[in-house]
């Protein structure tokens, strides 16, 4: 009896996660190959795979979009990297300070929460006027969007630290400076990590927004370009690749934090 339950559990563990994706791809295949939906609305999986192959691996110039992936991905990564770095540099210290110092929280809190009420997408027109089309606008949008989750979670993490842990630090002779990085930062790390991951996720969303507005390169630009010439297979390839690159960058962020901080490694 016990053994059977264990066995069932193992089977369900390995099989369950694959049922929905398989059904999804099966349905896609049936719908597109039987002509229920015309291929100019939903291309067949094989077409999409072929397009992805051309976009990623083919010789540049041999076909439309051929071999452009590396350059587009690099451009997008650089934009995300700069935007996200600005968000971290501003959001992390400000968030931790707001969480610990009531005066700072009162000083910045209402302003930041007011800004947060403005939908991120509405910054696009004014950003285009201020900064033009391209790198600067995209970085601005990414930084702005990623700032809020990083700031809010750092503040929550710093606020919710067990006060006895801070007392324990003070009692062992830890001053302001060592206390900040040896007690406060690790104590708030689970929240900080959540904020950074949410921020990076939203950074990719706003990257696409920034690149949808007439820049020549980048993963978002490719999708918009493909829409204009009706290459729906290329749109789908772009969507999937952004998902993959976003997921990989999240994994890299987590790995980086785990390597750099004991607290990120040990407090999951």
């Amino acid at each position, binding site marked *: 009896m016990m053994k059977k339950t264990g066995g069932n559990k193992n089977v369900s563990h390995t099989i369950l996660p694959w049922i929905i994706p398989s059904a999804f791809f099966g349905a896609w295949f049936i719908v597109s190959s039987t002509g229920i939906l015309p291929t100019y609305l939903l291309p067949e999986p094989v077409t999409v795979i072929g397009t992805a192959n051309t976009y990623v691996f083919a010789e540049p110039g041999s076909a439309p979009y051929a071999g452009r992936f590396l350059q587009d991905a690099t451009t997008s990564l650089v934009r995300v990297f700069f935007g996200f770095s600005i968000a971290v540099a501003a959001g992390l210290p400000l968030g931790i300070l707001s969480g610990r110092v009531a005066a700072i929280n009162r000083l910045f809190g209402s302003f930041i929460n007011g800004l947060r009420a403005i939908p991120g997408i509405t910054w696009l027109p004014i950003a285009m006027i201020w900064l033009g089309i391209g790198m600067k606008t995209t970085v601005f949008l990414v930084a702005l969007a990623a700032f809020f989750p990083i700031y809010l979670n750092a503040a929550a993490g710093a606020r919710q630290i*067990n006060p*006895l842990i801070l007392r*324990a630090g003070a009692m062992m*002779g830890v001053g302001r400076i*060592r206390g900040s990085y040896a007690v406060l930062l690790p104590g708030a790390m689970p929240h900080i990590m959540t904020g950074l991951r949410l921020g990076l996720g939203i950074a990719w969303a706003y990257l696409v927004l920034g690149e949808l507005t007439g820049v020549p390169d980048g993963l978002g630009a490719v999708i918009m370009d493909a829409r204009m010439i009706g290459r729906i297979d290329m749109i789908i390839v772009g969507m999937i690749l952004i998902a993959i690159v976003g997921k990989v960058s999240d994994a890299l962020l987590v790995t980086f934090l785990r390597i750099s901080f004991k607290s990120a490694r040990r407090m999951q």
Partner: protein
Amino acid sequence: MILSGGKEATGQTSPAAILEAITVTMQFEVNGVKKKVLDDINFTVQQGEFTCIVGQSGCGKTTLLNILAGFIIPTSGLVRVQGRPIRKPGPDRCVVFQDDTLFPWLTVHENIAFGLKGGEGNKRQIEEDVNRFLFFVGLLDYRNYLPRDLSGGMKQRVELARVLVLKPLILLMDEPFASLDYRTRWEMQDLLISLGHELSQTIIFVTHDVDEAITIADKIEIMAINPGTITEELHITQERPRKVNQTECAFYRDRIYRALWN
């Protein structure tokens, strides 16, 4: 058997006193109403003495300990350590709390080394000290464990090692064994008494448990409630190890209960 009742006169200092509390009063404001939590607390502690502060829940024991630690500043009066008034927390007055305050991101070994890393002393010296105290509290085999993998009793052993390794002038303990089971508690009391003796450590130990106080203390300060004040000082001269069912202990217990409940 020697008994010395009553409190010491205000501000009176004896040459060997390591800590003096002088007319310490603490007032809190709760919902606009001022409440006197501590009223005119006076006592002294000698070097190497094991002092217990006994009183019922809510009498201000923890507030008093927080004042001694420097976490809070009294409304009036002062506490002097080796003649110098206390202004802030510091490693000369280490605290073992009732709750778990180990750093969850550090191993047992790193937790104990934490306080040493701020000061002078090289890596090898720190390593030696940490190992010595790991041995004292019987946790050498657990040096690389994280706090979440330890039992409550083991955590309190690490808390104890982490502060003793700093060689504090005074060790402050706030009901440190209150949440441990009976047997573990008993082991911890033994450990504390033997370590305290070996290191001639001055200890101030807050508890609501009269039997615990009688078992471990050299001297008991009995605290009344509303407002919290020390009503009596009791020296326990009974030989160790003590059993709470001994006649002498029964005598002390009787005396403390009368002081607490009159």
